[in-house]
């Protein structure tokens, strides 16, 4: 105790002690001098003279003592902290189950929320790693990046001539660059044989790097001169990542030749480290000047065609200009440019289609991922925030229950002379150790969790920058660690304030008064925590149940075709320069060869096909139909082979299907789907009727076929027109894709290789972009839905487990604490079943209260899920009921063990416990 007193003494005590010491010396010296016969006065003077400068010495001593005390109190604190940590580890090891639950709960809460937010950050929020990204403005629909359209002027993607117009005539941008798809690149380095590579490429205008403000890591970048002359710049810039991957950062990569689809390009430089292009989710490996498009794609020249739409245009705002000004100016500019630059009919069609303009901030780049994953990610974020709340409540519950159960231990230690401050510090250390373990585990979960999520959502590793945002990790760790410390500290303070006499006299009951579970308690914090945990779990579980039911609906939706028996192969006919006649021959040959394969029931072709990601649409004019909006005139279309719909497993509803006689230059007959027929002819027959495309072309409906969900499992089938596949008509444009549908008798996976070999036998150089059973494509198309449903279910189960564990923990501690009371009841004649009922009733009150609060919450919040539910109402009764029942049953299960234990208490045991 003396040590403690001295540490707490402070500077005043030091000064007093130094004074005492010096006074003692002077007194002794004075006496000694007086023994030699001096008077007291003279002796005192002489003593002081012999001593020297008292003040200086005193000050020196005081300074030295202060330094010593500071050092020793630091050392003391350190030693005590080490003791506390060791004590905490021992104490946690004794309660390994408790520690494990807390750490796992923290890891799950921190890890899941950080992982989800890391993905949200990467996909939705992070700005491009370029200078002043906030100045960038995107013109064009980011969802169509990588797309291309032919046959009309569009505004979701721009033609090259239109890009030139925008660049020259705008007043809001310092400069504007264009970026467009390359399609698949077949590349060889240095013309040496070796494997063909398929780096991901973009055609970009020569000012691309200067507008973005990106410099070279090595070599030089495009300087703008590339845009002067078409086909005169056989050069390429590669990304730093591709340089590392392919060339191991060899400086001599610059200057080497890369042969892209037969054309030789010289690599002139490497873009700055970390820059992977303007597209989020698809890192670009190689940039090629847009003026080389005609050379690299001789079968699909798009530089001069005003109706070839394929470019996303990105501008950097001039000083002082704003996005709002760009939104004002660009549509007007485009409209004027189209009218001035296009033939009258095309301009007319363009203006009458009431085009929608896409002008938006480009700070975060361009991404198709965003459209697909925005809603799912935000849903998951909501789920994960709920989970984090549940975790905090859970951890708090457990800490509270534990600290109350330790009330007696605290009282004993206080009685034995432990220091209150020290006791609080020790409990706090224990919480901190728990929190540190949880935070560490959580960070690990976050790291691999975000990568696992990317894989689940179908993204390649490395396609997104998944650096964990430290602010996010900081927030989640802060929230949960804060909960631990808060709820570790509050009971610690209370435990340290325990009324010693009362506690020792009355056993544990006095402590329990202020705590959990006991009847007539004053501070029902623990109960509140359990109730809120249950309520939040109801919300999470019912949401998860709805999403899972929705996913099942989507999977089992009637798609209107033979989904189990189709192979879809995507052939790149433009790469080989197939034109009309040759395409026709190819189609005939392929049909004959494929039909001859054993196990093949039917073969069909189409431009877009099913679940291939390609879609076409056009505007029509329907005589006698008054459109209420411009959308009413838009229909989707496909160009298909004879008997297409029945070949893929659909039905003919009326009229006839397309046959060989509908093909050819003069063909003017089409088939429409039921959605089309019902929309334009609600009360009449569609077969035999006429409509117009682009003013000039008159088309007759030969038949009506059943609706087919051929592009999406979640969207209703659009109005669709089927044109004959080999339909030589400029108005529809050139089919750039060629999709083969093979219907099999057995498992389509067995025939994939045979189909591949057959295509190779017909034309060995014809690239197959993709070949898959339809079921695979369908699964891929609902990745986002699957991701959300699976994760929501996982979160729900976790929430359920935590709620059950929390309840178990609270009831266990509560019953142990009440051993005395229960023993008394038994002694007074209560039966086992009475005790059982007593404990269970107490727990179930909490669970039922939680459910009662949770259901309206779930009811209110599930509206947020509306856009993601298919065939399930946001107030889905089965989901809500299931969540409630599951929680009540698990609550019962969690209570049973402590209840049974309590019911076995014998009066003698209860007495010993006192």
């Amino acid at each position, binding site marked *: 105790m003396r040590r403690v007193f001295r540490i707490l003494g402070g500077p005043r005590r030091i000064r007093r*002690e130094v004074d005492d010491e*010096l006074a*003692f*010396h002077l007194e002794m010296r004075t006496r000694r001098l007086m023994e030699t016969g001096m008077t007291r006065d003279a002796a005192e003077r002489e003593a002081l003279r012999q*001593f020297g400068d008292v003040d200086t*010495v005193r000050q020196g*001593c005081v300074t030295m*003592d202060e*330094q010593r005390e500071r*050092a020793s109190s630091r050392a003391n604190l350190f030693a005590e902290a080490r003791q506390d940590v060791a004590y905490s580890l021992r104490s946690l090891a004794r309660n390994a189950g408790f520690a494990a639950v807390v750490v796992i709960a923290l890891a799950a809460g921190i890890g899941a929320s950080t992982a989800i937010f890391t993905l949200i950050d990467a996909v939705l929020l992070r700005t491009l790693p370029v200078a002043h990204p906030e100045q960038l403005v995107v013109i064009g629909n980011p969802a169509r990046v990588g797309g291309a359209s032919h046959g009309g002027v569009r505004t979701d993607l721009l033609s090259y001539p239109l890009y030139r117009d925008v660049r020259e005539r705008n007043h809001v941008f310092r400069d504007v660059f264009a970026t467009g798809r390359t399609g698949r690149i077949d590349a060889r380095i240095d013309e040496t044989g070796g494997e063909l590579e398929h780096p991901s490429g973009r055609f970009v205008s020569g000012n691309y790097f200067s507008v973005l403000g990106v410099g070279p890591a090595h070599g030089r970048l495009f300087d703008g001169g590339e845009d002067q002359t078409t086909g005169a710049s056989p050069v390429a810039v590669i990304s730093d990542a591709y340089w590392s991957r392919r060339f191991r950062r060899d400086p001599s990569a610059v200057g080497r030749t890369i042969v892209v689809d037969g054309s030789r390009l010289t690599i002139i430089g490497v873009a700055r480290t970390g820059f992977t292009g303007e597209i989020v989710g698809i890192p670009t490996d190689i940039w090629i000047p847009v003026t080389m498009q005609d050379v690299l794609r001789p079968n699909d020249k798009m530089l001069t065609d005003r109706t070839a739409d394929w470019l996303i245009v990105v501008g950097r705002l001039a000083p002082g200009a704003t996005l709002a000004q760009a939104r004002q100016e660009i549509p007007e500019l485009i409209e004027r440019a189209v009218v001035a630059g296009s033939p009258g009919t095309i301009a007319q069609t363009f203006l009458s289609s009431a085009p929608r303009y896409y002008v938006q901030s480009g700070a975060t780049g361009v991404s198709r991922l965003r459209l697909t994953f925005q809603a799912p990610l935000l849903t998951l974020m909501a789920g994960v925030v709920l989970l984090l709340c549940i975790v905090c409540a859970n951890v708090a519950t457990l800490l509270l229950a534990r600290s109350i159960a330790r009330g007696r231990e605290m009282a004993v230690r206080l009685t034995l002379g432990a220091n209150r401050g020290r006791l609080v510090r020790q409990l706090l250390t224990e919480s901190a150790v728990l929190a540190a373990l949880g935070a560490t585990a959580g960070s690990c979960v976050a790291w691999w969790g975000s990568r696992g999520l990317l894989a689940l959502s179908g993204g390649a590793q490395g396609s997104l920058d998944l650096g964990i945002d430290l602010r996010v990790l900081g927030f989640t760790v802060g929230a949960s660690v804060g909960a631990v410390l808060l709820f570790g500290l509050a009971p610690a303070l209370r435990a340290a304030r325990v009324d010693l006499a009362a506690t020792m006299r009355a056993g544990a009951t006095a402590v329990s008064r202020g705590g959990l579970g006991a009847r007539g308690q004053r501070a029902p914090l623990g109960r509140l925590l359990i109730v809120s945990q249950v309520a939040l779990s109801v919300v999470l579980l019912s949401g998860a149940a709805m999403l899972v039911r929705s996913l099942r609906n989507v999977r089992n939706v009637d798609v209107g075709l033979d989904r189990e028996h189709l192979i879809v192969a995507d052939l790149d006919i433009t790469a080989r320069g197939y034109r009309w006649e040759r395409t026709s021959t190819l189609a005939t040959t392929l049909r004959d060869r494929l039909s001859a394969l054993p196990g093949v029931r039917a073969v069909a072709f189409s431009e877009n096909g099913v679940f291939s990601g390609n879609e076409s649409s056009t505007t029509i004019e329907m005589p006698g139909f008054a459109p209420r909006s411009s959308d009413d005139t838009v229909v989707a279309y496909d160009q298909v082979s004879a008997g297409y719909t029945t070949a893929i497993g659909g039905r003919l509803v009326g009229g006839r299907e397309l046959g060989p006689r509908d093909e050819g230059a003069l063909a003017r007959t089409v088939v429409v789907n039921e959605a089309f027929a019902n929309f334009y002819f609600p009360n009449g027959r569609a077969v035999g009727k006429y409509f117009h495309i682009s003013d000039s072309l008159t088309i007759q409906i030969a038949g009506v076929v059943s609706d087919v969900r051929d592009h999406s499992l979640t969207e209703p089938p659009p109005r669709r027109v089927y044109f004959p596949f080999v339909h030589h008509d400029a108005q529809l444009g050139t089919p750039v894709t060629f999709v083969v549908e093979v219907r099999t008798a057995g498992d389509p996976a067995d025939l994939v290789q045979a189909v591949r070999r057959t295509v190779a036998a017909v034309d060995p150089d014809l690239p197959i972009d993709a070949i898959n059973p339809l079921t695979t494509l369908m699964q891929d198309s609902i990745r986002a839905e699957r991701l959300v449903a699976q994760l929501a279910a996982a979160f729900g189960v976790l929430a359920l487990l935590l709620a059950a564990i929390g309840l178990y923990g609270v009831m266990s501690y509560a019953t142990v604490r009440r051993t005395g009371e229960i023993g008394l009841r038994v002694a007074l004649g209560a039966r086992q079943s009475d005790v059982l009922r007593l404990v269970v009733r107490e727990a179930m009150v909490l669970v039922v209260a939680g459910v009662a609060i949770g259901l309206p919450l779930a009811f209110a919040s599930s509206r947020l899920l509306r856009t993601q539910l298919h065939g399930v109402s946001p107030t889905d009764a089965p989901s809500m009921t299931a969540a409630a029942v599951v929680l009540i049953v698990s609550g019962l299960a969690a209570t049973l063990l402590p209840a049974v234990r309590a019911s076995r208490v014998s009066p003698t045991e209860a007495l010993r416990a006192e």
Partner: protein
Amino acid sequence: MLDRDGGLLRGTLDVLILKSLSWGPRHGYAVAEWIRAITDGELLVEEGPLYTALHRLEKNALLTSEWGYSDNNRRAKYYELSRAGRQELRAEVASWERYARAVGKALGAATPVPA
């Protein structure tokens, strides 16, 4: 043993204090008296610096201190060598003997050039 300013050679007071405590705990006055007696009053011109030295040695953990009662029953601060203090004293004594031997040898030299 005096440097030019008339004070003690640096460190000499420290080692004398350590030596004076090598027979057991003493208060500051007793240390002063011992040094006075043993050096005939040559070394300790002023007694004040002795206390600064005592507190410095305590800060450096060569000494520990405790309040106790003197022979005439007055409260006094007693100093005692710590383990580190004992080691320090041994080291200082050894180093002093080496130094003295070397200087003694030099002053007693008989030839102008070493053999």
